[in-house]
């Protein structure tokens, strides 16, 4: 068992290191926006999905309602629906462990389990618990640091824009169809502050492309 825990941590180490700076940035941003530090773990436990937590800070201060929040969460985190198809949750014994494993099925734990298929349930859970610790603890540290740093420094929240730029780049590499980028950008400019409208319109467009292969072919622009 100890050997499996150690192996799980070894498998997760590289990815977990990448979570630390983002966790710190999230905590820092949260307190700079005026939240008390202990809101950082509350955000990270109720919504355990990094980029969505950053976005949730914006949605809260913008005062959006529960329906808008739900639609945004659905679109932004939709990719998670594919992870369970191959994630080795079956290795985990017992209801509590399986429930946690489902709850904590993030981009990172999915990536680790895909790159190095775990041999046991203990290792699956170790990977997931380790990833969550490496996200929540730096969040708390960043939040405490943010309470000491004077609030006069502006622009730290740009980390969110930069994060989405990087994610857009990485997702584009998986599907180099420029029409998706241009259409999404156009819809977002038109929708302005109404994020939910841009996301819903984009979804409808994809439905159109699915229903009409001719439309799909006409729009596709691979580079």
């Amino acid at each position, binding site marked *: 068992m100890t050997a499996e825990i150690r192996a799980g941590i070894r498998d997760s180490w590289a990815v977990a290191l990448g979570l630390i700076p983002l966790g710190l940035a999230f905590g820092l941003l949260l307190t700079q926006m005026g939240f*008390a530090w202990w809101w950082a773990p509350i955000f990270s436990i109720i919504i355990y999905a990094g980029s969505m937590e950053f976005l949730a800070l914006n949605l809260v201060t913008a005062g959006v309602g529960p329906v808008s929040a739900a639609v945004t969460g659905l679109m932004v985190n939709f990719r998670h629906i594919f992870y369970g*198809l191959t994630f080795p949750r079956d290795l985990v014994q017992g209801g509590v462990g399986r429930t946690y494993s489902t709850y904590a099925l993030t981009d990172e734990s999915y990536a680790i389990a895909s790159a190095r298929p775990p041999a046991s349930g203990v290792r699956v859970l170790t990977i997931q618990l380790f990833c969550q610790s490496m996200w929540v603890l730096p969040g708390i540290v960043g939040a405490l640091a943010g309470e000491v740093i004077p609030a006069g420094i502006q622009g730290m929240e740009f980390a969110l824009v930069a994060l989405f730029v990087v994610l857009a780049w990485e997702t584009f590499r998986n599907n180099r169809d420029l029409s998706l980028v241009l259409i999404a950008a156009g819809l977002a400019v038109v929708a302005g502050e109404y994020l939910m409208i841009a996301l819903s319109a984009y979804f409808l467009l994809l439905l159109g492309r699915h229903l009409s292969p001719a439309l799909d072919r006409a729009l596709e622009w691979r580079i």
Partner: protein
Amino acid sequence: MYGLPEGVTLTQVFAVLIPIGVITVALRWLPFAFVSALKGNQFFGLLGRMMPVGVMVVLVVYTLLGKRSAPGGVPAALIGVAVTLGLHAWKRDSGLSILGGTLAYMGLVNLVF
């Protein structure tokens, strides 16, 4: 009293956190319950290929437009985006790109504009 920013109520916070939390867990749970319905479904395949990049681009534009009223406005934010993209094209290290882009933007809004 609840450690919230001025003008933000407790209801407002949970009206965002709880729906998103529930939806996220539901998305992670669905494939375990409906493997056969989802596996091989063409529409889901298309969504898997086309949704992530579009959603991220929408979020870039949405957060960028949020900088309209900040010092330097959208131009400063566009410079920050250009620095982020440049760093990412060069090293492809997410942490470095985010840090570099953010520092560039912070330099602009605090020192230039």
